[in-house]
């Protein structure tokens, strides 16, 4: 089946504008993807006619909003094939989700002298929360190394796993390199020692179907806004065996059973981890994004993206001044590169003048930059609504950058 990209683009109103007099070429999808019209309209409808605080309300609007919000949770469950809808916890985004796991699992299960395995290619949001937990619990963060291509060295990882390892924190797809990590195999290796794995899935859920039961992930965390939903939405999926034993992350309204000044007991899942009024519209918007994705041929979308990535890689690799950072055998969506003698911020500014949005910087992955000994990279990241023609424009604009600095 062929992918009708022009038809898909009609669903994304933001894409039809011009920037600096040129048609917008949006290649910053790994930072945040755009929302299709059905998501925008669903949120707008909620805000216009359906809003009320959820749970506990006896009036019509509250019950309606609760039903819509809980329906979104059910969509999430099916989207990731979670075994239990109550193990899908709404959070504001992937960062908050990882903080939840690091803090709560840490308090429940990590102690003096324990080890937390974190890969070398993680986003800061899957490093810093673990460092903080390690510091608080007297534990230590141990790094899973990668090779020059930006692939984790699985044999090293298996050697690092030991009786002191209490959790492994791992990205499904690297945001700075695009590497797809062999998480299923790595989870299986951890489970041999009874060690749970927390998967940062922020960069995988927008690009290919996922199945938390097939992966056997203990925690699986992602943001809505990178998968064509709104900012302020995100999910922590966790296995019940862990979530039930973990203390609450935040406390207050909604997450309690009985409160007295002597003692408080907590609500069952998922409410235990959802203190306070959530981002209701964002949660419903995430549900609409899942509906949208389910309405696509997601396999054909992934294939289209893969072709774009391969073509862009080929075009940029043809330019002698360009170095591609991250050349793993299995990659998704992300193309990081540098140009000899030209700082990525200068690349970003000149591309912007051509209407092309890319990201320039350390991509919240400073250890990756240190590994490759670069201060920053330029990063183009693709979604299923990008076109081959946009890749041409990117390559032409990169040539232009080189001319400006010649």
């Amino acid at each position, binding site marked *: 089946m062929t992918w009708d990209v022009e038809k898909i683009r009609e669903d994304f109103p933001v894409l039809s504008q011009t920037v600096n007099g040129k048609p917008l070429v949006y290649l910053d999808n790994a930072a945040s993807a755009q929302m299709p019209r059905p998501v925008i309209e669903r949120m707008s409808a909620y805000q216009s006619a359906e809003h009320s605080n959820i749970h506990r309300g006896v009036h019509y609007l509250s019950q309606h909003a609760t039903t819509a919000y809980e329906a979104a949770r059910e969509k999430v469950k099916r989207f990731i094939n979670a075994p239990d809808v109550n193990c899908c916890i709404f959070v504001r985004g992937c960062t908050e989700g990882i903080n939840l796991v690091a803090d709560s699992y840490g308090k429940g299960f990590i102690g003096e002298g324990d080890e937390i395995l974190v890969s070398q290619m993680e986003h800061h949001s899957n490093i810093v929360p673990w460092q903080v937990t390690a510091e608080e619990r007297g534990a230590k963060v141990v790094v899973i190394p990668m090779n020059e291509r930006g692939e984790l060295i699985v044999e090293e990882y298996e050697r690092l796993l030991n009786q002191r390892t209490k959790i492994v924190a791992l990205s499904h797809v690297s945001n700075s390199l695009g590497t797809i990590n062999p998480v299923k195999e790595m989870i299986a290796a951890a489970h041999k020692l009874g060690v749970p794995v927390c998967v940062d899935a922020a960069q995988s859920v927008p690009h290919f179907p996922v199945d938390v039961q097939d992966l056997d992930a203990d925690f699986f965390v992602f943001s809505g806004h990178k998968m064509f939903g709104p900012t302020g939405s995100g999910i922590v999926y966790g296995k019940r065996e862990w979530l039930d034993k973990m203390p609450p992350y935040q406390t207050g309204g909604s997450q309690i059973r009985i409160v007295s000044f002597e003692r408080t007991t907590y609500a069952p899942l998922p409410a235990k981890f959802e203190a306070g009024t959530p981002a209701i519209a964002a949660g419903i918007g995430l549900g609409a994004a899942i509906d949208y994705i389910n309405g696509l041929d997601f396999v054909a979308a992934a294939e289209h993206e893969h072709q774009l990535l391969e073509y862009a890689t080929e075009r940029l690799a043809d330019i002698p001044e360009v170095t591609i950072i991250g050349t793993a055998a299995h990659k998704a969506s992300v193309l990081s590169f540098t140009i000899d003698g030209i700082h990525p911020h200068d690349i970003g500014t000149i591309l912007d003048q051509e209407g092309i949005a890319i990201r320039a910087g*350390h991509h919240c992955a400073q250890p990756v930059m240190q590994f490759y000994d670069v201060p920053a990279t330029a990063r183009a990241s693709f979604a299923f609504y990008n076109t081959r023609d946009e890749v041409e424009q990117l390559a032409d604009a990169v040539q232009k950058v080189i001319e400006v600095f010649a």
Partner: protein
Amino acid sequence: MSDLNELYQETILEHNKNPRNFREIEDADQTALGNNPLCGDALQIFVKMDGERVADVAFKGSGCAISKASASMMTQAVKGKTLGEADKLFEEFHRMVTGELDIEAGADDLGKLRAFAGVLEFPARVKCASLSWHTLNAALHGEGEISTE
């Protein structure tokens, strides 16, 4: 492309390629570190004073074309100036890149530094141009380390 030419003027591209005073001063009286964690720009400024006068000033580090050229041209501009004159240039430069100075009025001492007026049209790049100046200011006033975001 006219905005782009305004930003990447010949002088700026030339200083980026061949930065002046791009070295350490081993017996510096003052040094300061400047960081922009957002883009990874990091530079160190070295100052050698002769009484109230800046006898020598140099920099090291990595950054984009704008930040490197700005540091390079700044060292040329402040060498030999008194502390008061350097402070005044810093203040004028800062006002220029934030749009508070009318350079058409010709009442400033910025001279060649006016090449950076173009960053005004690129809000994301203003900090690239001003990082070296903030760092110099920290060095001259003994503050050691600054960070802009």
